[in-house]
């Protein structure tokens, strides 16, 4: 090993070593001559021995033959690439795009799904726990736990030596003016023992600070927060207000510590039982004995030798037991034999877990797309190489005839593609750096910085992609070089006149076309699906709505005071000139829904028909949201407490509950069948709730005056003009009303909705970008091949023209050849796309993956592009000079 290293070092300074050896031998000779006795019968030369052997054998010590060959080949490659700059630029640019796209996508997917959290000890042994069960024939997955369930798992499993619970959330930190809502994490005391860390300052939690019913009021600061808010000074023992309570600072986490939470670095960590035990209601205080609050997340570390499968089985057994225990409290829960609950010890990152988000799945697809782009680029480059290899047939044959070994020739060809691929790789990294920033904005949360510098994993992938490209593009021409038939190639008659078809090249061309078609079909599908998402009526207008939430933050208010405050906020908002309508609501689309038991006279079990959610809202709700009333009337100020109970139901709900009948005037009983009738007074258009894709939109609306104002968590405000400039103005105005340390947070509703559309938007953007890229690359490939064929056929075309062919005939001849390639590619691609359709369909929004419009459109585009790419060579073909041809004959 050591010897080889020094051999390698010597190889780099071999010229110097040669010179030194010469000097040394010279010195030896001089010394011999000086010391020679005149009477010595042995001459100096004889004593000296064989100098040539000395030099040759010494040299062998620092020559590494394959390295010498490699160097030669690289030089040769660089020389020949410089001789044809157009060819080289084309190849390098194509590969740079292909490699760059892949490196960037890998960087994104790796961050999203696979890259281990920093500082985590034995990352391979740590799992997140997922729960799955069947609900009305649908498989549900969650990674939110009840604290009681967390205790159950600790008690009833034996596969783990460590458990931790954590809950990332936002809480107001600080006092007075400096109060800001920050990302914090409530964690169990065991949490930090999953990591190889020591606190930067102070200590971590002790087990007795994390106990039920309520843990200690202690806090550990995030490193960034400690630096920005305290300048990194000693803060141990100081008090920090978090939420409504004072906490004592006991430690600071080290730099780079992120925990296992996605999202922004946490500003502070508090014991999870301290967080959970702060609830004021009696129900909230039972969080560790009942299964009434599923909120926190859970990680486990497996004991040595326990596989993830074994761990999952162990967890599942415990989960069934825990499910049955839960049924003791909630008899309406289906028995475990029906729900079939099971648990999975899965990936830490939920994007790689058993039920990844649409974004994560889309990201994986886009990675596949990037790989296809690289394949197309490779096919293209291989084709260009092949064209050149054919052109160089005579040169190659000559070399072979002169005794160059076929292996060396193949190595030369491979080296050439390697050099091109590596240059492409270097450029590709630049492409990936720029493109990756765009991609990470699409896929990754904003606080993740995407930089390839120092990102070894991504750089390695880029290099691997380059080597793959070199291999793929180099192998075919290399094989061709070694298979050249000397006798045929050297024959004088075999000049460029004979038009040679190469099956390999046709296959490559067709493959390129087919792959492009697949990507373009994908692009078309995603674009149409995005259009559908955009065009879909949500059941409300989002464009001028601001969502506000107020937090009391520890100010204790009685029920009537609290309701008074809500009314006051509502009136203040309504009084602002910029506000058109305002309404207090109990839930916000996509964020939360509420449901309760519902009884309808004449229907046995309403629950069996689906999930009916309700929205409690103050008067003016429908005007604020822009939800249209189809029949009857919305509720208004006259439907106050004490007045007859009224409700508005969604159209879907009306149709399901009273098919063929008018819903107006019907009676529903909310939460118990002993409740008085709530009369339906209006039917509203369907509106989305939790998910854009859920077709069932059973929803009813109750005037909050008639239910419970204290459940009015959110204030919705419709502005007269675009809300961007007024969000802060309205928020500040309302915050002034808040007593004590209360505060108000505001979001334009658009931002909430846009998040939900993102996966389709991202899919459409990426497929279009990569599909376009693929089309351009494929078009260049077609152009190059047709152009090359025309050059090859110039002689034949000249003869045709001499025999009276019109330029129109020649153009048709060449273009039809291009079209044949394109048609073959389109057919193959369409078949493949049809096959792939069922895999991509779940990612689309109410869009068939076999949409004929998309397929036909793509076929037309490809044929058009093929025609365009063949036109220039075709026109060149008409310039074939019959005179020249005949003279050459």
């Amino acid at each position, binding site marked *: 090993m*050591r*010897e080889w290293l*020094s*051999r390698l070092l*010597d190889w780099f300074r071999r010229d110097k070593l040669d010179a*030194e*050896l010469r*000097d*040394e*031998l010279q*010195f*030896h000779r*001089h*010394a*011999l001559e000086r*010391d020679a006795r005149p009477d010595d*019968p*042995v001459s100096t030369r004889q*004593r*000296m*021995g*064989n*100098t*040539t*052997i*000395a*030099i040759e*054998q*010494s040299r*062998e*010590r*620092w020559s590494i033959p394959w390295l010498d060959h490699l160097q030669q080949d690289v030089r040769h490659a660089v020389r020949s690439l410089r001789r044809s700059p157009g060819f080289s630029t084309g190849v390098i640019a194509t590969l740079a795009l292909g490699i760059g796209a892949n490196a960037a996508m890998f960087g994104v997917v790796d961050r999203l799904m696979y890259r281990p959290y920093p500082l985590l000890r034995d990352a391979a042994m740590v799992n997140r726990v997922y729960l799955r069960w069947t609900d009305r024939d649908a498989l549900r997955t969650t990674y939110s736990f009840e604290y009681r369930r967390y205790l159950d798992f600790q008690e009833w499993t034996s596969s783990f030596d460590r458990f931790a619970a954590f809950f990332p959330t936002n809480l107001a930190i600080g006092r007075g003016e400096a109060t800001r809502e920050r990302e914090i994490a409530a964690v169990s005391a065991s949490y930090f023992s999953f990591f190889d860390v020591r606190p930067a300052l102070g200590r971590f939690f002790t087990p007795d600070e994390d106990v039920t019913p309520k843990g200690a009021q202690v806090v550990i600061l995030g490193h960034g927060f400690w630096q920005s808010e305290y300048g990194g000074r000693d803060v141990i023992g100081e008090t920090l207000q978090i939420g409504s309570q004072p906490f004592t600072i006991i430690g600071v986490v080290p730099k780079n510590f992120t925990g296992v939470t996605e999202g922004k670095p946490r500003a502070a960590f508090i014991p999870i039982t301290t967080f959970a035990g702060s609830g004021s209601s009696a129900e909230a205080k039972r969080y560790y004995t009942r299964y009434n609050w599923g909120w926190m997340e859970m990680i486990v570390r497996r004991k040595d030798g326990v596989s993830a499968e074994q761990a999952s089985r162990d967890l599942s057994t415990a989960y069934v037991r825990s499910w049955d225990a839960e049924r003791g409290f909630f008899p309406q829960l289906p028995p475990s034999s029906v729900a079939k609950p099971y648990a999975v010890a899965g990936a830490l990152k939920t994007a790689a877990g058993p039920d990844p988000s649409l974004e994560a799945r889309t990201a994986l697809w886009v990675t596949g797309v990037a790989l296809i782009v690289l394949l197309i680029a490779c096919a293209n480059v291989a084709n260009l190489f092949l064209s050149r290899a054919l052109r160089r047939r005579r040169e190659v044959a000559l070399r072979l005839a002169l005794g160059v070994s076929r292996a060396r020739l193949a190595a030369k060809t491979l080296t050439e593609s390697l050099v091109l691929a590596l240059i492409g790789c270097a450029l590709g990294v630049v492409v990936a750096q720029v493109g990756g920033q765009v991609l990470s904005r699409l896929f990754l949360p904003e606080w993740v910085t995407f930089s390839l510098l120092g990102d070894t994993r991504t750089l390695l992938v880029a290099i691997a992609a380059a080597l793959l490209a070199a291999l793929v593009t180099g192998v075919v021409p290399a094989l061709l070089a070694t298979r050249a038939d000397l006798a045929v190639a050297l024959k004088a008659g075999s000049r460029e006149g004979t038009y040679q078809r190469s099956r390999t090249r046709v296959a490559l061309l067709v493959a390129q076309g087919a792959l492009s078609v697949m990507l373009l079909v994908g692009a078309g599908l995603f674009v149409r699906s995005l259009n559908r998402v955009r065009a879909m009526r949500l059941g409300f207008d989002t464009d001028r709505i601001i969502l506000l939430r107020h937090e009391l933050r520890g100010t204790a208010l009685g029920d009537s005071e609290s309701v008074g405050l809500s009314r006051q906020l509502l009136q203040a908002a309504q009084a602002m000139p910029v506000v058109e309508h305002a309404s207090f609501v109990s839930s916000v689309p996509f964020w939360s829904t509420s449901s309760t038991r519902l009884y309808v006279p004449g229907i046995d079990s309403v629950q069996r028909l689906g999930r009916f959610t309700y929205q409690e809202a103050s008067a003016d709700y429908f005007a604020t949201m822009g939800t249209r009333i189809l029949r009857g009337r919305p509720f208004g100020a006259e439907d106050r407490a004490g007045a007859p109970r009224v409700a508005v139901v969604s159209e879907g709900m009306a149709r399901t509950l009273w098919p063929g009948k008018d819903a107006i005037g019907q009676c529903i009983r909310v939460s118990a069948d002993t409740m008085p009738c709530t009369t339906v007074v209006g039917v509203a258009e369907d509106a989305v709730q939790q998910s854009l894709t859920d077709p069932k939109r059973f929803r009813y609306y109750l005037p909050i005056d008639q239910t419970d104002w204290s459940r009015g968590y959110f204030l919705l405000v419709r502005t007269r003009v675009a809300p961007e400039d007024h969000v802060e103005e309205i928020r500040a105005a309302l915050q002034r009303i808040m007593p004590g340390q209360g505060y108000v947070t505001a979001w334009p509703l658009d931002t909430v909705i846009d998040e939900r559309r993102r996966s389709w938007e991202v899919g459409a953007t990426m497929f279009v970008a990569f599909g376009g890229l693929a089309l351009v690359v494929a078009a260049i490939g077609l152009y190059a091949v047709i152009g090359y064929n025309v050059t090859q056929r110039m002689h034949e075309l000249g003869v045709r023209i001499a025999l009276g062919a019109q330029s129109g005939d020649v153009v048709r001849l060449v273009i039809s050849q291009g079209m044949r390639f394109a048609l073959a590619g389109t057919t193959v691609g369409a078949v493949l796309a049809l096959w792939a359709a069922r895999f991509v369909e779940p990612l689309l929004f109410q869009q068939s993956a076999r949409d004929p419009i998309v397929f036909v459109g793509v076929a037309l585009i490809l044929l058009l592009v093929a025609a365009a790419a063949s036109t220039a060579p075709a026109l060149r073909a008409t310039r074939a000079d019959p005179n020249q041809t005949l003279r050459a004959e």
Partner: protein
Amino acid sequence: MAPNPRRDLLPGTLDMLVLKTLSVQSMHGYAIARQIERLSDDILRIEEGSLYPALQRMRQKGWIKAEWRQSPNNQRARYYTITASGRKQLGVSESGFEELINAIARVMGT
């Protein structure tokens, strides 16, 4: 014909001889050759055709180091110095050599 009979070295012994010579003091190639010849009464003759490749090989193996110095008569010469791993190697070869000689002696003695 040379009056002094020239003996071929047993394979592998050249390295050992060179290391042994260098274990006394640093020397240039010529001095190494002369020293071996002198100590063996000119029976062993070291030709540069084998000496210099051997020196390079041992240098790459890390047994000896090479540096250019002024020789006593003010000429630039490359001096070789034995390293710690070279001394270890010398020990290994010496004991192996001893075993070999003893074995040959036993065979020849019977």
